[in-house]
C-alpha cells in the first residue's frame, strides 16, 4: 500500500483503478439486489438445515457458484459420496466451459488478475464482462476485476448475513429473485440490438426451450449445450461467410 501511494507513476495507477471501479460499480447494482436476496436465502437454508454460519460463509467464498451451493447442502446432509459430488458439480457447472471459450481473448493480458477473473466467473460476472460497453480510457482488466470482485462480495455478505440473522427477516420479499431473470433479459436484448443476424441468439433461446420441455428443469442444460454446439458447428460455413455475427 505504501508503495502505491508514493510517487507519480503509482498515483496515476491509483487514478486508473478508481476510474475502473467507478465504471464497474453501476453495472453490478442489479446483482447486488439479486445476490443479497439469493445469498440471504441460501444462508437461511443452510441455517435451517442445521449448519452454522461458517458453512455458507466459507462455501460462498470458495465455491462461488450459486446453484451448486444449494445442491451442496443436500450433499452434506446425505451419505458421504465424493464421486457423486464431483459428477453433480461438473454437470451443474458445465455451462462455465462456454463462458471460458468466450472469454479466452478478453481475459488475455490482464496479468495477475486473470486468475481471479477465471476463479470468479459466475453467470452474472461473465455476462457483464462479456457484454458491458467499457468506456474509453477505462482499463478493461481492472473493470472486469471489480465487476467480479463486487459480485462475489455481494454473494459472500448475503450468504453470511443469511446464516447469522436469516430467521429475523420479516418483510415480504416474494418475487425479488426475478431481478436475475430481468437482468439476463436485458443482457440478451443488448446483444440482440447490436448484432446483425440473430441466428445464434434464436438458437440459444429455441434449443434451450425445447430441451427444457423434453428433459425437464433439472436435466436440460447438458442436452442444450450439446445441441447448441452441434448446430453452431454444423452452421459454421454459412455463419463465417456472412461475416461477424456478434
Amino acid at each position, binding site marked *: 500500500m505504501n508503495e502505491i501511494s508514493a510517487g507519480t507513476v503509482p498515483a496515476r495507477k491509483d487514478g486508473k483503478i478508481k476510474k475502473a471501479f467507478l465504471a464497474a460499480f453501476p453495472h453490478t447494482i442489479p446483482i447486488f439486489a439479486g445476490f443479497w436476496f439469493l445469498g440471504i436465502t441460501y444462508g437461511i437454508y443452510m441455517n435451517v438445515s442445521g449448519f452454522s454460519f461458517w458453512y455458507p460463509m466459507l462455501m460462498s467464498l470458495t465455491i462461488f457458484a450459486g446453484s*451448486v451451493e444449494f445442491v451442496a447442502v443436500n450433499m452434506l446432509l446425505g451419505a458421504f459420496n465424493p464421486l457423486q459430488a464431483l459428477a453433480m*458439480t461438473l454437470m451443474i457447472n458445465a455451462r*462455465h466451459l462456454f463462458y471460458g*471459450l468466450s472469454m479466452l481473448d478478453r481475459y488475455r493480458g490482464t496479468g495477475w488478475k486473470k486468475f481471479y477473473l477465471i476463479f470468479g466467473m459466475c453467470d452474472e460476472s461473465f455476462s457483464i464482462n462479456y457484454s458491458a460497453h467499457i468506456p474509453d480510457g477505462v482499463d478493461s482488466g481492472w473493470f472486469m476485476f471489480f465487476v467480479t470482485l463486487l459480485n462475489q462480495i455481494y454473494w459472500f455478505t448475503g450468504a453470511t448475513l443469511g446464516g447469522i440473522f436469516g430467521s429475523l427477516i420479516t418483510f415480504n420479499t416474494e418475487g425479488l429473485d426475478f431481478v436475475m431473470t430481468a437482468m439476463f433479459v436485458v443482457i440478451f436484448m443488448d446483444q440482440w440490438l447490436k448484432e446483425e443476424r440473430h441466428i445464434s*441468439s434464436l438458437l440459444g433461446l429455441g434449443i434451450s426451450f425445447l430441451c427444457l420441455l423434453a428433459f425437464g428443469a433439472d436435466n436440460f442444460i447438458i442436452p442444450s449445450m450439446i445441441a447448441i454446439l452441434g448446430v453452431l458447428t454444423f452452421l459454421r460455413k454459412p455463419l463465417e461467410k456472412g461475416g461477424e455475427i456478434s
Partner: protein
Amino acid sequence: MTLTQQIITIAIVVLGTMLTRFLPFLLFPAGKPTPKYVRYLGKVLPPAVFGMLVIYCLKNVSIFTGSHAIPEMLSIALVVALHLWKRQMLLSIAGGTVCYMLLVQLVF
C-alpha cells in the same frame, strides 16, 4: 457425515467448479495460437448462451399449471418495453422486478 467428510465434500465441489472454469484457459493458453474452430465458437457462443440463461432463469416456471407463467410473461414484456424505450439497464431491471413482485404478492 463427519467434519472431515464434510470438508472433503466441499473441497470436491470447489475443485469441480474450478475445473469447469479453468479448463478452456488451460487447454488454449494465451501463448499459443487458438484453433480457428475454437475462436469461431468463442464468437458465436455468447448470444446463444445469453438465450440459454434466460431460459435457465425461467426453468421452474410451469406453463400448464398455477399462474400459467402470466406474471413472468407480463414482467418480461415490461422489461423489453422499458428497455426499448429508455435503454437504461437499471430502470428496465427495476421496473420488471417491481412489477413481478406486485403481481405475485397481490394478484396471483
